[in-house]
């Protein structure tokens, strides 16, 4: 089967802009806060939020750590200037180092998680100060692979791009005229020097997006994906990653005791009454 992840960016843009506007205004807000890393995903979420709410209603946050690439800050600034939005910069080095220094030899994964969660804390604090909801920046690829820090970069009030694969986010970025420097650079969580998503995951987004599209969207069995040309080891690794990370995609289970329990038989949308 031919795997075509091309999207009509005009249609997607219209739905996502209206989604952001609808979900923020019906919650009683008019503004949004976005953690702007200088990468592709947060640039797209930010640009969509500006289109939905107006430049004066979006606050971009730059939250560098000491080892963050200079590019990250510069690229975020490029977008801030292009969109003409308010931005604040809070270095998180001191906050993070305060915890990291308490234990010698902390692994870089632990340190990276601390940084991701501190950025969440700053975003939610600014959410209260700016009276804006936190707009999420996680794409479908990283949600499915669990390539995210729980209660860190995954934390948000609403996520406009969570049903778009990374390669589709890139198409949308072009339509939104995100600066080419941001679109072209290798994706990175920038939690330590030289880190790249594709280096850490061990495969490219172009490859894994096609596999995920077959497994998830087209409901192919793993063995059918192998028949379609993907290596067995790759398919097995991705299927296992999806399963192992389900906990990051749902609320923690509540132990059921009563006749009516949140999460099982107390069922209402968040938009209840609005």
């Amino acid at each position, binding site marked *: 089967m031919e795997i*075509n992840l*091309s*999207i*009509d960016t*005009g*249609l*997607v843009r*219209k*739905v996502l802009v*209206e*989604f952001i506007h*609808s*979900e923020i205004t019906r919650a009683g807000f008019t503004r949004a806060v976005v953690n702007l890393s200088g990468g592709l995903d947060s640039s797209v979420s930010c640009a969509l939020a500006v289109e939905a709410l107006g430049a004066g209603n979006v606050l971009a946050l730059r939250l560098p750590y000491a080892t963050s690439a200079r590019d990250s800050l510069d690229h975020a600034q490029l977008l801030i200037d292009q969109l003409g939005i308010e931005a604040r910069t809070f270095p998180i080095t001191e906050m993070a180092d305060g915890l990291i220094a308490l234990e010698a030899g902390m692994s870089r994964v632990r340190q990276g998680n601390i940084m991701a969660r501190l950025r969440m804390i700053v975003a939610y604090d600014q959410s209260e100060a700016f009276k804006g909801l936190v707009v999420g920046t996680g794409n479908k690829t990283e949600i499915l692979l669990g390539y995210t820090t729980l209660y860190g970069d995954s934390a948000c009030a609403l996520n406009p791009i969570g*049903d778009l694969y990374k390669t*589709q986010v890139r198409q949308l970025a072009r339509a939104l005229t995100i600066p080419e420097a941001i679109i072209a650079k290798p994706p990175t969580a920038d939690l330590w020097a030289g880190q790249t998503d594709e280096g850490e995951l061990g495969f490219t987004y172009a490859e894994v997006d096609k596999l995920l599209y077959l497994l998830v969207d087209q409901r192919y069995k793993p063995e059918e994906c192998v028949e379609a040309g993907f290596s067995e080891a790759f398919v097995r690794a991705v299927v296992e990653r999806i399963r192992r990370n389900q906990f990051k995609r749902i609320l923690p289970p509540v132990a059921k005791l009563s006749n009516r329990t949140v999460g099982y*038989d*107390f*069922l*209402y*949308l*968040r*938009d*209840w*009454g*609005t």
Partner: protein
Amino acid sequence: MRLTIALAQINTILGDLRANLEKHLVFIEDARRSGADLVLFPELSLTGYVLQDLVPAVATLTEADDPIFKALLKASRGIDMVVGFVDEDARHRFHIASAYLSRGEVVHIHHKVYLPTYGLFDEGRFFAPGNSVRAFDTRFGRCGMLICEDFWHVSPPYLLWQDGADLLLFSSASPGRGLAEVSKLESSAWVEHTNRAYAGLFTTFVAHANRTGFEDGLNFWGGSTVYDPDGKLLVQAPYFEEALTLCDMDMNQLHRTRARLPLLRDENPALVQRELKRMQHGN
């Protein structure tokens, strides 16, 4: 005979009957002033769609002293209408329902027969299925009403056709889904394709009102349509935006189309019935 139908493509407030009623009354009055004879609202237009545990709280009784229906019945003195609501029957079963109101009376109620309970849908968990598909007489001729999944199945439109309906009134709250390179969602393309097919295959008018807006992450794509007995698109409301879209229908098109293409005359329901009976009895 001519009939002007108004497609009331609205967004709703989830679980707020009063607010939704107010919007209905505004659209009904606009339609009446614009000269429409009949106004068609989407599925669950009085309540919102993903109701879940709100179902018992928003259920309505179609009685003259019910405050919601009292207002609608009063408005129906000036214009006929189809509204969507949760119908609680005498035994306290809850149905997704459409009511046809005219001249202060409830003419017909349809209970959604096919409740999608798969994929993103969970209707069978909260609602009881309807058990009949009947056409009914109106001052514009014989009509039939179906709700969303009802017309994803081929048999309900067929039954209405055979029961004499020359105007099919479809309502839905269709969540948009299915991305592709083209500028139309797969769900929109599918519904337009099938509705056009019914109009052509049954040489009948098919009017469809779909809702707009969002409920959590679900978008409702609007794009309400009217097709004529040749399968020709007479009108389409905009995608994603609230609109009141009028369509002037020349009902004599039924005469012209069926003179050219006598599919109704030649249809053989007795054969269908015989063969279905044979299949049911396994021989």
